[in-house]
């Protein structure tokens, strides 16, 4: 314990000394963060300082092995670092699907050679990765994917399209599920490959949402040549990697690990709604809905804590990530609904004078996608009822 206490003290001192003030402020615009990549852009000098300090300290991915560019911290040390960063409000030095999604998959499924090749580049922010799972018409039935990878000896020739590929128009490489066996049953002919977006035949088109602009794109592959060494894991067994990543993604979307500072709904209500003589919100129905919502929000946070604590003792079910995904996204949807109700006609504004006008309405519209992306709420409920409750198929 003494050693950990020392680590905490040292960490705190280092962070306070090295994290620029502006990097301790919450992110306001999702585009105003450092994503790395070939055409890396630091939007501010502080962003650059912060990334370089952390890279030097090996804390961009503190918990990966040192040989892969990580910091080699133990889980306990990493926890402390996270806690101290949260305490100080430090931003992540690098935003990256390479860290959150591809990295864990490589660690679990890739060859040692692949790990040594790709992981350090992720840490150094050299490649901006995006992901290619969903396809037009596939929807929840992810495994029905149709993007074909035909074996051409030393390479695959890939043709098809992907949808909901975040930042594909900016990314350098894509990790991708493709069909490599066209006879096999739906789940068994899928492989996991890495594709350089600069290869001939790759193109992208941004997707506009009901909320307006979005990072999502459609990505098209027209006879794209991909070297065979870009295959991760076993040929035709990519579905295992997909399942692993889906569970991972669900946890992220469900809100675990989110350090976003949320304004309490009742505060917004007090600023927006008529107040009665007792100092309470005059509309009793709305007041009750807010109190009910905040009840669930607070208890959901406690539940993340409880289940995380239980997981540490080895008592956990992977399917619980479906519960987190389902409940967390429904809560965010409920939050946006309430904020709309509280703010009355003002909430309806889409465009007016200022850049921030329309924020509320657009966030509300955007939240409608939460219960769809990363596996719909219906899919999560299916998983809970089958994998946790053991209810049978028909």
């Amino acid at each position, binding site marked *: 314990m003494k050693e950990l206490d020392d680590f905490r003290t040292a960490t705190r001192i280092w962070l306070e000394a090295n994290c620029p003030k502006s990097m301790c402020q919450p992110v306001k615009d999702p585009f105003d963060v450092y994503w790395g990549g070939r055409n890396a852009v630091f939007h501010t000098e502080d962003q650059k300082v912060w990334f370089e300090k952390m890279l030097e300290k090996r804390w961009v991915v503190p918990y990966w092995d040192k040989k892969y560019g990580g910091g080699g911290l133990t889980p306990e040390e990493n926890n402390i670092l996270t806690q101290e960063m949260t305490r100080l409000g430090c931003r992540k030095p690098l935003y990256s699907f390479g860290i959150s999604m591809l990295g864990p998959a490589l660690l679990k499924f890739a060859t040692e050679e692949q790990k040594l090749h790709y992981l350090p580049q992720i840490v150094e922010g050299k490649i901006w990765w995006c992901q290619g799972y969903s396809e037009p018409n596939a929807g929840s039935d992810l495994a029905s994917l149709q993007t074909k990878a035909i074996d051409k000896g030393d390479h695959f020739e890939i043709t098809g399209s992907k949808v909901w590929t975040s930042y594909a128009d900016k990314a350098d490489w894509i990790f991708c599920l493709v069909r490599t066996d066209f006879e096999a049953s739906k789940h068994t002919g899928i492989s996991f490959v890495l594709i350089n977006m600069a290869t001939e035949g790759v193109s992208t088109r941004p997707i506009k949402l*009901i909320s307006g602009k979005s990072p999502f794109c459609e990505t098209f592959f027209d006879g794209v040549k991909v070297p065979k060494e870009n295959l991760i894991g076993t040929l035709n067994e990519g579905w295992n990697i997909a399942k692993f990543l889906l569970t991972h993604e669900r946890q992220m979307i469900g809100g675990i690990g989110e350090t976003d500072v949320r304004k309490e709904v009742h505060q917004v209500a007090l600023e927006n709604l008529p107040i009665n003589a007792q100092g309470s919100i005059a509309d009793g129905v709305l007041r009750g809905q807010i109190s009910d919502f905040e009840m669930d929000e607070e208890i959901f946070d406690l539940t993340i804590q409880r289940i995380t604590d239980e997981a540490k003792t080895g008592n956990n079910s992977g399917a619980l990530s479906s519960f987190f995904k389902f409940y967390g996204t429904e809560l965010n949807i409920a939050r946006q609904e309430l904020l709309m109700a509280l703010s009355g006609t*003002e909430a309806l504004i889409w465009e007016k004078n200022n850049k921030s006008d329309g924020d509320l309405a657009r966030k509300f519209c955007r939240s409608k996608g939460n219960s769809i*992306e990363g596996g719909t709420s219906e899919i999560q409920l299916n998983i809970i009822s089958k994998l946790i409750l053991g209810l049978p198929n028909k």
Partner: protein
Amino acid sequence: MALLITEEQKMLKDAAAEFLAAKAPVSAMRALRDEGYKTFNPNLWEEMIAMGWTALTVPERYGGLDFGFVGLGQILEETGKHLSKSPLLSSVLLGTSALKLSDNDALKAKFFPGVMEGSIQLTLALEEGKHHQINSFETQAVKVGDDYVLNGVKTMVMEGTTASHFVVVSVLASEISLFLVDKKSEGISISESILMDAGTYAEIAFEKVKVSAQNKLNLQQDGKLMLDQLMAIAYSGLASELLGIGQQAFDSTIQYLKERSQFGVVIGSYQALQHRAAILFSELELCKSIVLKALKAIDEKDNNAMRYAHLAKAKLGKTVKQVTNEAIQMHGGIGVTDDANIGFYLKRARVVQQLFGDYHYHLDQLAILKGF
């Protein structure tokens, strides 16, 4: 009286449905949005006028059709289905009704012809804050000589940028009073916002605006009572549009459930979705009844017209919110893209359910009406 529409009302509804499907479908609304949020298509409005829709609720003695609000409700239901944009709500439902309720016969005789032929386009300047209420207003009218002077700021005025005249709700000597104000009057300044339905709504500032005494809408009658009657009409009319929005969003979703396949079967075969769809169906059945009842109550001068209007706006506000949310969810990923039309129904539903009081407001009013 049977809770049904008459053959004549049915014919009007069918004609509106056919006309709007051809001339003002969702794609037209999308085009208006994409062309820099145009408020509406003037040619379409001309055709609506030619079809007599601006004369629909005008009394016969002023040359109108006096067809009643059940009739107008049928048209609004159809505009809801197609998300057709026009000044029907602002000028016909709100402005014309204010004039109709007025006891200023000279004013009516002067303005009704223009309203019907389209040279005059009315709208209502009522709201002052972000939450609807009809009991107290900051906008003041003061008598100066024979005329009046208006001061105040009104928000969320539908078609405030294209209307030629405003019906302004104000306070005159502590009592509510309504005036018909020419947009060209001196002292009026207008700024606009685009709401999430891609519609244009105006904030209108009245600074020492002179209004002739001839333009006072309530002469002998109580302004508050007139405003109440106008609101019963407004709530019921908006509920009619919501009914159309809800029904169309529901029908499109059922259609999608029958077409879209996942895991080798159409998704409409999943029981969880079936039950949710059946519940929405049931709620929409209730919606149909209360909208019709509320419209009839106005035409029949039912003493309970205000209660039915609150019931209609509350029930429709709640249900159509639920229906459009479910519609998006059941459409899945495609539902949240701008390419799909279903999102427009979500957005328009949000605006209409909020305008003139949302579910919470009307639920509260119902409780107050009943004394609890």
